[in-house]
């Protein structure tokens, strides 16, 4: 097997760009949701928990279809984004990043929630008694102590983004240079006879990237929990 060609490295670069963007967008939302679910009681909490997990259990094409309905140029959110912020998602790498972020969200939320729950609330009480308000107590106690979990969640979400296919192709189609990430490129290659070598090279890169991300995530979790917690 030869080394990947420059066109293939472009596909890898696109995949990395999409996945990194997906994780950056996903992180704050995932942490906020994780904190809400870990620390707050409110009516509809179980419903929120279930909704967050939907992309994990729905067929990816369904998630992609919902994204198309909402974020397409004719969809309510998509039209607003284009009109007000000038952001287009359809047929563009930004749409692929959104699809990847949505699919990665449940995994990131789970990892972060576990690490927030592991922070002893009595430590937060101690901080309050020493003069820290809610926000300062959160920033100086909960946030630093849950940091390894945040990182683990981010890396796990990144690994999921690298492999995202169904929602992406249903939402933003298969556009070379924009949405043809590694999984879509492999899929395209499988459709055309005579491209086995290219498919093999791309698949090998996918496997390596995913393995590295998964191992890194596991290592981070072990470091944080002293060997107790696992998110894989």
């Amino acid at each position, binding site marked *: 097997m030869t080394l990947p060609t420059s066109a293939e490295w472009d596909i890898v670069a696109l995949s990395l760009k999409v996945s990194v963007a997906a994780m950056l967008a996903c992180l704050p939302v995932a942490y906020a949701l994780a904190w809400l679910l870990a620390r707050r009681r409110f009516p509809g909490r179980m419903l929120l928990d279930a909704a967050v997990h939907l992309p994990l259990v729905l067929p990816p094409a369904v998630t992609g279809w919902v994204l198309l*309905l909402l974020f397409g140029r004719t969809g309510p959110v998509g039209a607003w984004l284009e009109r007000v912020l000038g952001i287009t998602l*359809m*047929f563009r790498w930004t749409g692929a990043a959104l699809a990847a972020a949505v699919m990665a969200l449940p995994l990131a939320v789970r990892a972060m929630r576990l690490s927030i729950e592991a922070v002893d609330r009595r430590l937060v009480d101690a901080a309050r008694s020493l003069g820290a308000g809610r926000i300062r107590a959160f920033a100086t106690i909960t946030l630093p102590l849950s940091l390894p979990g945040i990182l683990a969640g981010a890396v796990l979400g990144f690994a999921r983004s690298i492999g995202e296919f169904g929602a992406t*192709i*249903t939402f933003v*189609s*298969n556009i070379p240079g924009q949405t043809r990430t590694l999984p879509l490129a492999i899929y*395209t290659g*499988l*459709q055309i006879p005579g491209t086995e070598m290219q498919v093999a090279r791309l698949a090998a890169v996918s496997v390596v990237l995913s393995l590295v991300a998964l191992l890194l995530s596991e290592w981070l979790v072990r470091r944080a929990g002293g060997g107790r917690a696992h998110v894989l």
Partner: protein
Amino acid sequence: MIRQRQTAAVSLLASFLAVLAAACSPARDDAAPPVVLAAASLQESLEAAADGWARQGHPRPVLSFAASSALARQAESGAPADLFFSADEKWMDELDGKGLLRPGTRITLLGNAIVLVAPQDSKAAVALDDPASLPAALGDGRLAMADPAAVPAGKYGKAALETLGIWPAVEHRVASGENVRAALALVERGEAPLGIVYATDAAASAKVRVVATFPAASHPPILYPLAVLKTSASPDAQGFRDFLASDAGRAIFLRYGFTAPQTR
């Protein structure tokens, strides 16, 4: 206590696996309906044909719709199906070459045309004999097509655009979908200003209108071959195939906009 739990778990697992195995093994009785792998563009018409067949007292065939390329791969991998109804000769030839078809059952059943469609309320007008007309009508939007490299509807579209000298201008403006129905959906929703789909797809959808029809001479004839697969286990398979090939069967397809197969 632990032994009891282990035994319970094992017997639960065993009964689950038994049920799964029973569900998976093909029912080899006379009532087994044939499984048909059919191109996505045949969806409405083949459902109607299957209903017609069922009304005659036969078990209703099980229909599986996808891009012909994906279906051919499934058949090659030994998927337990009875009939293959493809949207182009090439994928049928591929299976034929590998000896996967039952001899004497292959027949070219239907023809179709490809059309350029736009959302129902679009005012777009395109003259296909002017290579600049389509790109101009596209503006900064994309042309929705099934994958031009692998899916028949996409390949016919690309061939037509190449013949008409339009392909170079739109090659990088294509939104390539998994199958022709995905392309149709994009135009229906207004996400793509124009798309290339089969005439039958356009007829089936109330949300698009036909802007232009590609001349039959601009692409290889669109032919729908049908054949029984060698691995077919259903006794009804041959009967359903003959029904589809009969005048009554063909009439159903003609109602949905298909044509008799054209030969060059």
